[in-house]
């Protein structure tokens, strides 16, 4: 019997889990995919939004501003790449200026500091590559970038260090309440718990509707992106937004927390919340829109394209707290689209506390401090590298040439709690395979290391869980099979 089952291992579920791990009790995170941060948490803009965009008085506004103010400290504590690079929202007409003024007022009302409207000259002085047709801009010094999947992973690591179980490959098929106990059906059997927290992203409405008589709708909204090579300097030192439209914050160009340039997203409502395919139309839309900000926009140095699906709530605001219309001890965080990544630490703290108080969970006797993510070999000085090699000779073995990732880091990523189990799992934790060659050189070696650490065959290794196997058989297997067909 669990005290709390958290459904969904995205940034929200992991933030709630981390908060609950500071209380006494038995907790587990149930994740349908083979790794945490598999949904929107791994494929978004990675922006810590200042909080001028959300309408004052909404949950989005409250959690955005509260979360943003927690980020710098949290990222430092967990060792997650984060940089307070600032942002600008560009206006290209006097109508745009009116919108920017509205954003400014909203921001001030929401409690965002240092906002002001600046004119062309100052824009170009700060960001010389901006389209000189820009008339004015909202300057947002408190905006920041963070590595979203590493934030999610770090929250999960810390939760796991303090005893939270992570049940991966564990989709929830049915939930019901019986004798004040929640029953959660999964491929691992029926799990019982005193309370549940629904943080299931694009799948959250379906679970909500299983237990509540108040029907909810989530509209999956896909966004497509281009990511450029980190050796090509991003043309802007800040996150460059355009004035927002009704489908979201519009297309941005930003350095990521790792220094790549990110272009996107498009915004398209789709029927399948797990359809993360990119499309010609979506990618062309991104390029087209980016040219407004950056007339010389080009993707010659693109290393990849990707798409993420936001969980857009039909109500347009976050739903956080007890599940209305359901039996007691059901909680949820639903419709956490942008600025959800920013809001996550605040949602985790508030919702985790609310659940703990409701269940009258005592504080944990001892909470382990987070073991921060390892300092990457690539970011070390020469002396630090020499020391690292002396400490662990596996640092002397470079596996990923493009991003300079060592065997020591890859083994650590597999051995950690909530460790990597796939090529993409290693990639998200270490950046091996994220560079120019996109894993061409290192994936065979990463596969070998996974086999050594997990005591399995290369035929068992997947790209990202499920049936995403990289190899289909030995040479003999396939040759025999082919003879059988003849």
């Amino acid at each position, binding site marked *: 019997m669990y005290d709390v089952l958290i459904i969904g291992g995205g940034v929200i579920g992991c933030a709630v889990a981390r908060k609950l791990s500071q209380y006494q009790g038995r907790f587990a995170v149930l994740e349908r995919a083979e790794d945490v941060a598999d949904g929107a948490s791994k494929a978004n803009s990675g922006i810590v939004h200042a909080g001028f965009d959300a309408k004052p008085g909404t949950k989005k506004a409250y959690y955005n501003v509260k979360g943003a103010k927690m980020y710098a400290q949290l990222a430092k504590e967990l060792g997650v790449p984060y940089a307070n690079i600032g942002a600008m929202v560009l206006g290209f007409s006097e109508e745009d200026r009116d919108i920017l003024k509205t954003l400014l007022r909203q921001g001030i009302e929401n409690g965002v500091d240092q906002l002001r409207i600046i004119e062309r000259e100052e824009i170009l002085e700060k960001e010389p590559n901006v389209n000189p047709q820009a008339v004015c801009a909202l300057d947002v010094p408190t905006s920041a970038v963070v590595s979203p999947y590493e934030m999610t992973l770090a929250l999960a690591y810390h939760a796991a260090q303090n005893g939270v179980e992570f049940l991966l490959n564990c989709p929830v098929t049915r939930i019901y309440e019986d004798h004040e106990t929640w029953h959660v059906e999964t491929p691992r059997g029926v799990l019982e718990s005193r309370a549940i927290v629904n943080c299931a992203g694009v799948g959250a409405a379906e679970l909500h509707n299983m237990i509540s008589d108040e029907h909810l709708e989530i509209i999956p909204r896909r966004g497509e992106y281009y990511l450029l090579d980190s050796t090509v300097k991003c043309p802007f030192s800040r996150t460059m937004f355009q004035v927002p439209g009704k489908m979201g914050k519009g297309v941005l160009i930003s350095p990521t927390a790792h220094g790549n340039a990110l272009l996107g997203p498009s915004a398209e409502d789709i029927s399948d919340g797990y359809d993360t395919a990119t499309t010609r139309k979506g990618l062309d839309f991104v390029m087209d829109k980016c040219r407004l900000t950056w007339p010389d926009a080009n993707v010659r140095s693109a290393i990849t394209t990707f798409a993420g699906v936001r969980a857009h709530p039909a109500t347009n605001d976050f739903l956080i707290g007890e599940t209305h219309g359901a039996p007691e001890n059901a909680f949820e965080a639903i419709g956490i689209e942008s600025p959800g990544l920013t809001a996550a630490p605040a949602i985790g703290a508030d919702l985790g506390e609310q659940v703990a108080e409701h269940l009258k969970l005592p504080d944990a006797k001892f909470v382990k401090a987070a073991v921060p993510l390892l300092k990457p070999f690539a970011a070390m000085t020469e002396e630090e590298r020499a020391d690292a090699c002396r400490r662990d*000779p596996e640092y002397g073995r470079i596996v990923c040439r493009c991003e300079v990732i060592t065997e020591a880091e890859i083994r650590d990523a597999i051995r950690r709690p909530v460790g990597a189990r796939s090529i993409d799992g290693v990639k998200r934790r270490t950046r091996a395979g994220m560079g120019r060659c996109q894993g061409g050189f290192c994936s065979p070696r990463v596969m070998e290391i996974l086999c050594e650490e997990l005591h399995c065959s*290369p035929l068992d290794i997947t790209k990202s869980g499920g049936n995403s196997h990289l190899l289909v058989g030995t040479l003999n297997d396939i040759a025999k099979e082919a003879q059988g067909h003849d």
Partner: protein
Amino acid sequence: MIDTVVSVNVLVIGAGPAGLAAAIAAKKAGENSLIVLEREDQPGGILRQCIHNGFGLHRFKEELTGPEYAQRDIDAARELDIDIRTGVTVLSVSHDRRVTAVSRENGLQVFQAKAIVLAMGCRERPRGALAIPGTRCAGIYSAGTAQKFVNLEGYMPGRRVVILGSGDIGLIMARRMTLQGAKVLACVELMPYSSGLNRNIVQCLQDYGIPLYLSHTVIDIHGRDRLTGVTVAKVDENRRPIPGTEMEFDCDTLLLSVGLIPENELSAGAGVELSRVTGGAVVSDTLETSIPGVFACGNVLHVHDLVDHVSNESFRAGEMAARYAQGERRTGREIPVRDGRGVRGVVPQKLVLDSENKGVDLMFRPDRVYRDHYLTVRADGKVLSSVRKMILTPGEMVVQPLNEQQLAICRDAQEITVSITEEKAV
């Protein structure tokens, strides 16, 4: 702290065919202070996984497999007692030829070299660079990665294969996977001509009945976990897909053979001037880069079709590096070699005109297919040579030698231009 710096006269980075040849030549030129650093556990480079034959026809006048070709150089290096250190990855090269490297055995090491030969080879262009839309499922590999799985690890990456791009590795893998029991459904090439060697089109596709779709490309990728299919469409002269020409292929594997990129991150870090056309260093006829004492050869300089050419080029780089380390300096006037009409990426980009220069091979690729044209080399306006070529194609590198007499004519010239002309130039 880094307390020891290893001093060495010639440091070669990479022990593939280029690095091995450079080291052999340096040693034969009398250089005994010589170290080769190789990141893999064995020397040989990419040849280790190229188990098909066809290597060495020019150099050894026989058909060898990749590993056999490499072994000849490895054996020669052993006989010459060349110090090849494997499992060592170079992290940085500085403009004053300080090299940091890391290995399991020795941790972080610093080398100070009098001369460096850059021989890091090249890598394959990945899917992301093409921005093909679709899912990011398993089953998409660069041809060389698939070749490694099959030839070095003994595993098959798939059963039903489409190949995008007609580069040589893709063509070789079409045959290899067919022989191993896979079904190769098509080879799809964006351009109206193949980028691979003609002999590979014949021996790897035609002999196995694998269709080659020129002026076609993959426009969509399907499959959530593992690839389930691709959509291929014909493209117009601007390489844009033509609506209505889509074909669906039911495949579990997409191999990419869409180009090779010289791996010059270390060179760029050192401040070596790179060519936007070749992706490699700008070099003189001695294969010296813009940084004195730093030489480049093989696929890190420009992507070759034949390893025989790599070896020849690298012998020269190795010898020149040794002579540089021994104090020899070229003093002649330097003139540029320029790409004229129809020509892309002539290497070397500069000639030093002195008495030491006994001739040079100019290498380049045509910018498209030319039939019955003339390959013309001019010194300023003066024609040095104009040679009839029945076919010139981007898939086959052209080697045009300039001999000592021709160089003598250049003595007072300002520049040399290589171009492709319809008529014989006089």
